[in-house]
């Protein structure tokens, strides 16, 4: 018999039946760090970039505090090098047929598969996350993402005809993130032909490893470049002229709020506490723990939150098998928190759950929707009808029914409200990195001397401008708000001139209060309109189309006074009516069902209204552009506040006379006045859910800046005119994409 290797204390374990350590060896992660001489640089253009004279920060094991490697911090010139590499790579990468790009992504997936142990041990080692989660979850999903997007790339020419890759994408990642968050973003970008420069926070080796794996595939080295540096480099990356889009993701909090119906409160709390008591925390590289650590900072954050909650009157339950020393924090349940206390509103840190009771489902929905966040939620109920009602009602990007945390490459994941409006995965994720073919490339035209404080702040005063002359009858006057023409709050008007410089008519001078009133009216109409069936929406749009045709001669003569030839004017009216009909028909074909692997049951991809959509119309095509923007917005179930063409708002007001008789009050509101001023009011309005702006480059810049306040989706033209009479630009799929948001509703089934 061979030498004995007996354990000293099997006797004790036999009695206590404790769990023991299941250490996952991380020697391969250390060996990889050794190949870099324990000093990580950046990975650019298929090579390691280790410039001299750079600051470095240590990459530490969050559990032990031990330094694993030092990481060089990028400077502006390194960013420029990376962007240049990506720009060069874009030329050949985007010119490849989709099939070739798909093949390349598949090769990357295979390389990840071959080196998965290195990937998961490295990720767990440096982030402190549970290795099993990384191994069985993230690494597998990363490969699935690549395979899914490889397929999308292969069919790009047919499935995504009319779209082209944007170019170089800048990706900014937050301090606490899983490399998977990067994969969700780079896979669709690379698939459609864009190239990526990712700025990762200091001491994140896994993205660098991924870039190395991708780079070592040989061909197309510059498609994925990773630089590591401080958050202050974000603006540097964003302002690189070659960058066409910046994608970023915020820090992940990861705490949860739990709403429990009063009738089952005691039962649920008991079960929850029972289960929490069995959770095990420990070093991420231990194969038998449920929770790792997210480092000392996360630990402090949780501690502070729990102390504050306690001081505000909450009760706290902590349990689980947790190492006593920092940076481990036990799973914590906070309850009986007074609803109005600050902690009840604050974001919940990991690993804390705040539980509160509710009486009716309606109340729960109001509470759940009453936060600025809109990422994901799960509904647990055995009553299918009620669960679906809640699932549809929740203003979230993802809703799981009787499940939680499922993800799949084919299901779009995103959010609404302050959780951001970008999408990853599924068809929606692809469009994030595409633009309609022929759209001018975005030149970085941010004006440095833009004064955000004064843009559109005041309205130049207007005076009477001579007699109203001309053949057409007096145009309608007033702001069209809440279903009727109203006098503006400022009680003043602005003159509109025709093409020969004569006075065409006066329109009301709208202001901040009028915008407020219009947004309010739109909100009142929103639930009713969103609840209408697509068929009913289509019916109204068709009725408006018919009304437009009846009004053809008036509309055409007003267009004529703006210098349009009669034939062209009549054609514009006809095309406008056609647009309304087309969008009416499209209203009936929204959303679809997805089938994902590993789950029985469907995932519904719902297309939901954004809410109140504000639209600032372009000067050109005063009728056609107005209608082309109004139609998709309404077809998708939004209510709108529109600022019509500044040059000739009279056409829109003519249409409003029909809207007044056909549409429910508040569905479409039209506010005339100074365009910059009204744009300012709309952009700074926190309860406008989305804003489309077709105007100057300066106005576009302001809209983007101001809308960052609530992260509402914006669509701006940057002063570039659109061919509204062309199908692609005037009625293309881009409008439909932007007029609604996606929700993924997961419906696992089982007997």
């Amino acid at each position: 018999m061979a030498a004995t290797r007996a354990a000293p204390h099997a006797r004790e374990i036999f009695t206590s039946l404790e769990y023991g350590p299941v250490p996952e060896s991380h020697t391969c992660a250390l060996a990889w760090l050794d190949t870099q001489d324990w000093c990580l640089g950046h990975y650019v253009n298929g090579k390691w970039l280790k410039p001299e004279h750079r600051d470095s920060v240590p990459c530490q094991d969050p559990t032990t505090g031990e330094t694993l490697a030092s990481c060089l911090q990028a400077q502006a010139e390194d960013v420029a090098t990376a962007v240049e590499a990506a720009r060069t790579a874009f030329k050949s990468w985007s010119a490849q047929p989709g099939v070739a790009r798909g093949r390349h992504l598949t090769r990357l997936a295979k390389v990840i598969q071959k080196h998965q142990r290195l990937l998961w041990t490295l990720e767990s080692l440096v982030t402190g996350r549970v290795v099993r989660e990384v191994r069985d979850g993230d690494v597998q999903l990363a490969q699935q993402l690549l395979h899914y997007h490889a397929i999308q790339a292969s069919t790009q020419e047919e499935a995504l005809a009319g779209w082209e890759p944007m170019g170089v994408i800048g990706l900014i990642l937050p301090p606490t993130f899983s490399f998977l968050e990067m994969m969700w973003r780079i896979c669709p970008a690379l698939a459609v032909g864009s190239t990526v420069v990712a700025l990762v926070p200091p001491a994140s080796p896994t993205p660098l490893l991924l870039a190395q794996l991708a780079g070592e595939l040989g061909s197309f080295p510059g498609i994925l470049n990773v630089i590591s540096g401080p958050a202050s480099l974000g603006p540097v990356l964003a302002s690189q002229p070659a960058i066409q889009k910046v994608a970023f993701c915020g820090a992940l909090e990861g705490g949860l709020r739990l709403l429990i119906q009063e009738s089952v409160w005691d039962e649920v709390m008991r079960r929850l506490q029972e289960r929490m008591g069995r959770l095990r925390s420990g070093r991420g590289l231990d194969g038998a723990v449920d929770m790792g650590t997210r480092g000392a900072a996360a630990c402090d954050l949780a501690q502070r939150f729990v102390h504050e909650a306690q001081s505000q009157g909450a009760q706290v339950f902590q349990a689980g098998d947790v190492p006593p020393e920092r940076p481990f924090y036990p799973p914590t349940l906070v309850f009986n928190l007074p609803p109005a206390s600050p902690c009840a509103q604050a974001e919940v840190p990991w690993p804390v759950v705040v539980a509160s009771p509710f009486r009716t489902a309606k109340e729960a929905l109001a509470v759940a929707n009453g936060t600025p966040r809109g990422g994901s939620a799960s509904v647990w109920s055995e009553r299918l009808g009620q669960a679906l009602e809640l699932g549809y009602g929740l203003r979230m990007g993802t809703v799981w029914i009787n499940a939680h945390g499922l993800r799949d490459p084919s299901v779009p994941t995103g959010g609404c409200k302050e959780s951001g409006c970008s999408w990853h995965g599924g068809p929606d994720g692809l469009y994030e990195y595409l633009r309609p073919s022929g759209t001018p490339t975005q030149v970085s035209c941010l004006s440095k001397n833009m004064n955000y404080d004064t843009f559109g702040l005041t309205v130049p005063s207007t005076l009477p401008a001579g007699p109203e002359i001309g053949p057409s009858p007096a145009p309608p006057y007033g702001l069209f708000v809440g279903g009727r023409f109203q006098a503006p709050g400022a009680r003043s008007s602005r003159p509109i001139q025709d093409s020969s410089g004569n006075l065409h008519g006066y329109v009301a001078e709208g202001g901040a209060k009028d915008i407020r009133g219009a947004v309010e009216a739109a909100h009142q109409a929103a639930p009713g309109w969103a609840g209408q069936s697509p068929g009913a929406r289509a019916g109204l749009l068709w009725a408006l189309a018919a009304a437009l045709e009846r009004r053809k001669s008036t509309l055409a003569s007003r267009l004529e006074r703006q210098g349009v030839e009669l034939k062209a004017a009549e054609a514009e009216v006809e095309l406008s009516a056609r647009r309304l009909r087309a969008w009416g028909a499209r209203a009936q074909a929204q959303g679809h069902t997805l089938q994902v692997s590993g789950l029985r049951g469907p995932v519904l991809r719902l297309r939901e209204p954004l809410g109140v959509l504000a639209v600032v119309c372009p000067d050109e095509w005063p009728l056609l552009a107005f209608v082309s923007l109004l139609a998709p917005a309404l077809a998708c179930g939004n209510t709108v506040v529109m600022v019509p063409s500044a040059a000739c708002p009279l056409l829109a007001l003519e249409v409003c006379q029909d809207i007044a008789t056909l549409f429910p009050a508040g569905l479409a509101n039209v506010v005339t006045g100074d365009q910059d001023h009204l744009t300012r009011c709309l952009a700074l309005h926190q309860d406008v859910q989305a804003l489309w702006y077709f105007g100057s480059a300066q106005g576009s810049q302001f809209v983007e800046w101001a809308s960052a306040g609530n992260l509402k989706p914006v669509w701006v033209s940057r002063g570039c005119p659109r061919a509204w009479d062309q199908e692609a630009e005037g009625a293309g799929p881009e409008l439909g994409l932007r007029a609604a948001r996606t929700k993924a509703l997961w419906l696992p089934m089982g007997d």
Partner: protein
Amino acid sequence: MSARSRGTELDLSWISKIQVNQPAVLRRAEQIQARRTVKKEWQAAWLLKAVTFIDLTTLSGDDTPSNIQRLCYKAKYPIREDLLKALNMHDKDITTAAVCVYPARVCDAVKALKAAGCSIPVASVATGFPAGQTHLKTRLEEIRLAVEDGATEIDVVINRSLVLTGQWEGSDFIKTSTGKETVNATFPVAIVMLRAIRDFFWKTGNKVGFKPAGGIRSAKDSLAWLSLVKEELGDEWLKPELFRIGASTLLSDIERQIYHHVTGRYAAYHDLPMS
């Protein structure tokens, strides 16, 4: 076996209210198997513990006194003495929880165990095992005879036609299956049963035992079953009075794993005594 459960008024509304979220149960079953592994001396200790939960079973048509005798000897000495010594566990009196045989073999088993000088209980399957499709009268008589022969535990096959029509019976232990079905003990089913046991305990204070049977062949499986019970019911259920594993070949795999743990080598077939 524990003191008989005191029983409670049968309240069928408990059963009709039960909802099972199947996808969630499947996920939980996967999780427990993946998240609760034990290694090294923990594994050895857990495996030895698992031995003490085994109802060492032979339910073959060709069982005879000789193989019953061998089974009983194995129940008394489940792990080679030198391996136990190496683990310093030789004085823990590690035996299986019971031997489990057909009613007609109870006599042989009792005799063999007495000869080996140990008090391992004899369990007998009864009541028309495995289908249970015999008359109530013969079923009761079968139990009576087995008890007369010295069986102290009876695995009763309940009348499933009654269950399927909602007429339930009570018990001290619930068993996943007879072990003779095509699908036997699975984790998802076990989770549902363990939750039922927990609910019953919360409602009445009575502890009902749990016995998975059928298809548990590997040492690794047995560890997963232990952690499943530990996670769902807690350590208080991890004793032979409340937890048994019905198995015939499991023990030899456990012994092989212990051999490997102690020696660092994989055992040849002839290195370990057969059961």
